[in-house]
């Protein structure tokens, strides 16, 4: 159906182009050899420039109204999240200010100074003062942004081992994620993909002789206790992947042959996040869309879509092959008690091996 629609649209566009070409050709025949802009052209395009300026402003406003809930500059769920969000908002304010002013000047000048026969332009080749001004202003603004940005960056990337972070390994493979917890000693056992033994169900290549590895716990869901710093150690067994956790403002590549790391402290449990008004509205909106889609699907004899409930997600964000688009893992942030109960149910590595 859509395909047919697409083709119809394409055909109409082609017809439109063909018609327009014909009209222009006919119009051309009268005043030959004027492929250089005339005063009339200048005037028309000058007005269109103002129209285009309006279009830019309108599309900006419409985009903000329709899609501007900007889930990534609010409702962060990690301790460092708000600092990134603040920096983002400051940068955006600067950007929109500069964008609005410069686009106005550009298009307004294009309209105001549209060419007329007999008019002479101002011979104005240079002005050191002006140039100094628009060199120095960006320097000052950028210096501020750089200082703020670097401060934020260093705070985020610096790992403080002293506040006893929960150590979790994120293990990537085509096309799924595993999480490995250090167990009671909170220490990950040694591992290398060369030690993978599928027959013994040693799927992450843990060193079976390492005492630290014995109590490691491997899971397919990532559970995190709220309020406790987590330090992720990332590994990949095959190609590059990227562990992207947008709600926590966290991302780090997983690189075969090396261990990368990223740390953050989750601050909002999944249950609490579901209750925030902003999230409720988003979920409601998504579910309305899904209900509409389901109606269509059911009419075609297919199953309806499930109702959506919010969960934090870990997504793969580095192209990794065919099913890259579906490489995800659910993240659950919960209270310490819930987390303790969950982790107690999981199998330790030494008990998960098959002999």
């Amino acid at each position, binding site marked *: 159906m859509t395909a047919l629609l697409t083709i119809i649209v394409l055909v109409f566009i082609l017809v439109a182009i063909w018609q327009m070409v014909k009209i222009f050709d006919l119009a051309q025949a009268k005043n030959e050899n004027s492929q250089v802009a005339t005063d009339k052209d200048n005037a028309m395009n000058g007005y269109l420039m103002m129209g285009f300026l309006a279009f830019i402003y309108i599309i900006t406003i419409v985009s903000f109204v329709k899609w501007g809930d900007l889930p990534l500059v609010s409702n962060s769920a990690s301790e460092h999240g708000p600092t990134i969000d603040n920096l983002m908002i400051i940068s955006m304010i600067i950007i929109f200010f500069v964008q609005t002013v410069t686009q106005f000047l550009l298009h307004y000048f294009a309209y105001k100074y549209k060419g007329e026969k007999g008019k002479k332009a101002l011979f104005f080749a*240079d002005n050191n003062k002006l140039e100094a001004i628009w060199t120095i202003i960006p320097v000052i603004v950028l210096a501020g942004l750089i200082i703020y940005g670097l401060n934020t960056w260093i705070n985020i990337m610096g790992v403080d081992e002293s506040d006893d972070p929960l150590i979790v390994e994120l293990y990537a493979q085509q096309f799924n994620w595993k999480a490995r917890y250090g167990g009671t000693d909170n220490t990950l056992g040694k591992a290398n993909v060369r030690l993978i033994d599928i027959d013994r169900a040693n799927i992450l290549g843990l060193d079976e002789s390492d005492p630290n590895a014995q109590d490691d716990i491997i899971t397919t869901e990532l559970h995190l206790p709220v309020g406790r710093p987590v330090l992720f150690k990332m590994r990949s067994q095959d190609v590059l992947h990227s562990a992207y956790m947008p709600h926590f403002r966290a991302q780090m590549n997983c690189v075969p042959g090396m261990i990368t790391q990223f740390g953050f402290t989750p601050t909002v449990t999944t249950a609490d996040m579901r209750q925030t008004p902003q999230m409720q509205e988003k979920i409601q909106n998504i579910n309305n869309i899904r209900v509409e889609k389901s109606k269509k699907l059911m009419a075609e004899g297919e199953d309806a879509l499930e109702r959506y409930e919010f969960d934090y997600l870990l997504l793969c964000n580095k192209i990794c092959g065919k099913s890259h688009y579906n490489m995800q893992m659910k993240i659950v942030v919960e209270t310490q008690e819930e987390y303790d109960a969950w982790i107690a149910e999981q199998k330790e590595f030494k008990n998960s091996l098959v002999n």
Partner: protein
Amino acid sequence: MSAHADTNAHDDHGHHHKETFVTKYIFSQDHKMIAKQYLITATILGVVAVIISMMMRMQLAWPEEPNVIFEALLGKWAPDGVMDADIYLALVTIHGTLMVFFVLTGGLSGTFSNLLIPLQIGARDMASGFLNMISYWLFFTSSVIMIISLFVEAGPAAAGWTIYPPLSALPMAQGGSGMGMTLWLVSMAIFIASSLLGSLNYIVTVINLRTKGMSMTRLPLTIWAFFVTAIIGVISFPVLLSAALLLIMDRSFGTSFFLSDIFIQGEVLHYQGGSPVLFEHLFWFLGHPEVYIVLLPALGITSEVIATNSRKPIFGYRAMIASILAIAFLSTIVWGHHMFISGMNPFLGSVFTFTTLLIAIPSAVKAFNYITTLWKGNLQMNPAMLFSIGLVSTFITGGLTGIILGDSALDINVHDTYFVVAHFHLVMGISALYGMFAGIYHWYPKMFGRMLNKNLGYVHFWVTAITAYGVFFPMHFIGMAGLPRRYYTNSNFPLFDDLANVNVVITIFAIIGGAFQLVFLWNFFRSMFYGNKAEQNPWKSNTLEWTTPVKHIHGNWPGEIPHVYRWPYDYSKPGHDVDFVPQNIPLKDGEEELQH
């Protein structure tokens, strides 16, 4: 130095000796013909790349729905008209490769450096016509190989245009990493050879063959841009070549430059001790300067077109040169901003944030200078002028979001999302494309001796301008919602269901915009034969190319090469009756050459 020009008399090049069809149109050594060969080759590849992007957009708007266009164009890759996930990644890869390298590097620099360097500096031809011919034919060969790779049994390269190993190195990781990737690498190696030969030629020509009086500070800004672009190319392309060669070694000869500790499809591979991060460094050492290799020629063209059509000198000529040089220098020390979260030391991230944000300064200077050039001008709204103004507009919109992406702390969260896609398409894709269009509309009379139809040009510009914003502006918002790029469909994430309608809006704009490029193609090919005959200097421009006869001759000028007495931007200079004074007009008595 400039005295050399006359020793390079046109008799050497001999427009007397007989030309056959082959020497004139195929194995031509004439820079003007080579420019046209580049342009037409790039146009054809551009059409392929646009069709590919249309298919990607349709897939994203209506995921996994049968589409007869897919069925017709993709064949076995779209059983029953539903696009396969593998081929989607291949389309992404080939679209990027064709656009970045073949259209906007080969096509843009190849066309306009070749056409304009000899004409604007007053030279009979390139320093080496033979190398120039080889350069084009290597470009042609690499294009053919790239196109052939589309028809490989297991699929074309599909690891993204950045071809990060191990994905690109292991055929078992992805169908496209077999023969498709081999052809991709071979094609790129040949392309780089072509680009290096071209760049060396441009550099040597600009340094040695300027006509009498054409000092470096009287060069048009186009030439400055092409010159600096060529220098960046010579510095950075060899690094990509080395990365490609090392990758070929890893793939075919068992070395471990980029690979280590890999377990895939049930077996451990022998690779040990290499690092994919090393490849990222090598790739982006070219990859980032590449952005400016694409953009600077477009900015150069814009400078010339805006000045000519504003009937005003370009504002801040020296500042423009300084900012080109500053951008060129900085571009070679910012590559790490593509790798903030690659696992490299966070301290390096700080350094690259610093250098990256510095680039905003020369860029801002350029933007403000363009705007000031328009101020109190007498703007002639030719299609080339519209595209130049459009370039400044998209350059600002796209460039500004670079402040977010270049900031390592913010990049954590928008890295590899659609925010990036929106940013680079506006700032280098659309901007460079506008520069290319501006160049084509402006120098078409010089290339083909005929005029393009201006009304079709207007239609082409306005529809393109509106649809380009319509495509890439909303895209920022799906990026900020956390949607990763290079996803075949988003339907596995209900979280993004509310963005589906944005994708439809974007796709509709894209289809309209893509379809209206037909207006350009029609105009372009039709005008070659039926366009109005061009005058010698239709835009009343100051630069030397407009002193050559409309009909192309070997050696460019029938008589002596004109001497140059002034800078190229004496538009509306007080004390002259006409509003332009070409560079070859001597100073009047008592007239001062401006201390520009």
